[in-house]
């Protein structure tokens, strides 16, 4: 049967993710050692899991309010004030979602309509473009550069703004580059945002995985930006809770209330058990974050140092759990490099082009793996490079 006449053309024309292809190759081979997965290797802290179990045992298995339990929204509000210095009203300015992904989708759909341009800095996670297309918006890609540490600059931003620009997506700390925007960088962006009167979706899901002395700065904390920013965050990366599927959006009540309508019709409410566990995570999870961040940091330093020694130069990633080395020294394209690496040494990494055309010449390497695993993979990559010499 020919389904093409039944299927939505917009959906059909969405390209499958380039990350998938490499997972599929890796899946069919034995003894592959992967540095490709984009989720923590830690399991959810035990006290958080226990809280989930306890509420199940008590039979607390009903829907939550559409916006999420008020206790959770209170905790999110406290957390934002405590960690990022921004105050949100739990009644109107916070929506609990099924992962950060749902919050991104809701935000784009609540704001974007036919003819609107959405600015998407790349390399970036793969969801912003298709979601914009589904909302009838026009994605406008801004290519960030290695020499700027893959940060978005004010000039790059301004040169892509047109009268149709409505929304800027700010995906920092960045997957796949590990780039972060420090306060001064955000202030420069804020000036352009204000001047051209646009909205910002700041995807800060990796906020807690920021390395170095300075902590993560939320874009909403920049003067004048709280009113025009929807911040997306969640529990997946900070608390190693990917499978619980819990995230949230905070922002102006007028936007959150529109997002809440979409959420209540499509999703009803985020998973109840996960919400109880998340309350515990926010109350008592700071030390867990600290522990995981320091472990990631050790791995990050090892992998950056080793890549540089091997001649795969990488700028120092300051966030998330990815490094984005340049593979140009090999003379191959990203795709060729990753394909040959997996076939010859059975190491799976993801070509930079999976995150946008401007990822050409780079590859994403995840360090959410044990040191033992990383060490073995690095040895294999070095063998591969030596063979190619």
């Amino acid at each position, binding site marked *: 049967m020919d389904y093409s006449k039944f299927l939505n053309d917009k959906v059909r024309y969405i390209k499958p993710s380039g*990350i998938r292809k490499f997972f599929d190759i890796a*899946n069919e081979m034995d003894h592959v*050692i992967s540095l490709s997965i984009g*989720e923590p290797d830690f399991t959810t802290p035990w006290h958080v899991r226990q809280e989930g179990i306890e509420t199940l045992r008590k039979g607390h298995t009903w829907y939550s309010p559409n916006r999420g339990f008020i206790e959770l929204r209170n905790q999110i509000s406290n957390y934002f004030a405590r960690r990022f210095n921004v105050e949100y009203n739990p009644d109107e300015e916070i929506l609990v979602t099924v992962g950060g992904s749902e919050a991104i989708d809701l935000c784009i759909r609540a704001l974007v309509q036919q003819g609107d341009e959405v600015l998407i800095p790349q390399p970036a996670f793969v969801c912003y473009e298709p979601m914009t297309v589904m909302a009838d918006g026009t994605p406008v890609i801004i290519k960030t550069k290695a020499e700027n540490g893959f940060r978005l600059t004010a000039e790059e931003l301004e040169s892509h703004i047109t009268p149709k620009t409505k929304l800027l997506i700010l995906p920092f700390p960045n997957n796949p580059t590990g780039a972060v925007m420090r306060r001064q960088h955000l202030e420069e962006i804020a000036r352009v945002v204000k001047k051209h009167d646009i909205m910002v979706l700041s995807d800060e899901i990796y906020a807690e995985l920021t390395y170095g002395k300075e902590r993560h700065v939320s874009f909403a904390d920049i003067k004048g930006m709280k009113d025009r920013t929807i911040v997306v965050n969640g529990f997946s990366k900070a608390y190693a809770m990917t499978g619980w599927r819990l995230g949230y959006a905070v922002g102006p009540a007028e936007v959150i209330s529109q997002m809440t309508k979409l959420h209540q019709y499509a999703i009803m409410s985020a998973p109840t058990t996960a919400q109880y566990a998340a309350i515990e995570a926010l109350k008592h999870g700071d030390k867990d974050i600290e522990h995981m961040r320091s472990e990631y940091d050790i*791995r990050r330093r090892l992998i950056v140092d080793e890549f540089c020694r091997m001649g795969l130069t990488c700028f120092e990633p300051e966030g998330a759990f990815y490094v984005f080395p340049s593979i140009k020294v090999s003379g191959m394209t990203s795709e060729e490099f990753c394909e040959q690496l997996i076939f010859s040494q059975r190491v799976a990494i993801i070509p930079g082009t999976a995150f946008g055309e401007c990822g050409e010449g780079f590859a994403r390497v995840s360090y959410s793996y044990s*040191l033992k695993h990383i060490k073995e993979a690095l040895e294999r990559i070095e063998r591969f490079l030596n063979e190619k010499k």
Partner: protein
Amino acid sequence: MDKLLELINQNSEFTTAQLAAMLGENEADIIKRINTYKENGIIKGYKAIINWDKVPDSDVTAIIELKVTPKAETGFDDTLKIVASYDNVESVYLAASSSYDIIATARGKTIQEIAEFVSKRLSTLDTVIGTATNFVLTQYKDGGIIFNEDDESSEQRSLIL
């Protein structure tokens, strides 16, 4: 705890350059610290962790518990020294337990050999008032490393976006 020791304890194959990178220190300082640990007797040596179950004709291991009468002057020290002096004894611990005072692990060619060692060399010590010998069938984990678990099967995360 000292992060350097923690890392070496995890894997002694890291080069000093790698340790320096991981800890954000310079390599010369790392070398100096390791040497100090060796001089102070904190780092006592490096050895491989071997899964003997995979080695043909490998030895048998036993965990031996000893009930000991402490001596007035030296307590358990004399007995610990004697037990530790045997080459086939791999490790010796003084235990805080109500039933046993010393726990040792020993290796031998056969169960009989170990049984004989316990009855002739350990039970006969005048301070030892009782022994219990536990033979190891399979070693599941050693030095923080789980055996019989290959990397492929231990990856439980799904491959998604």
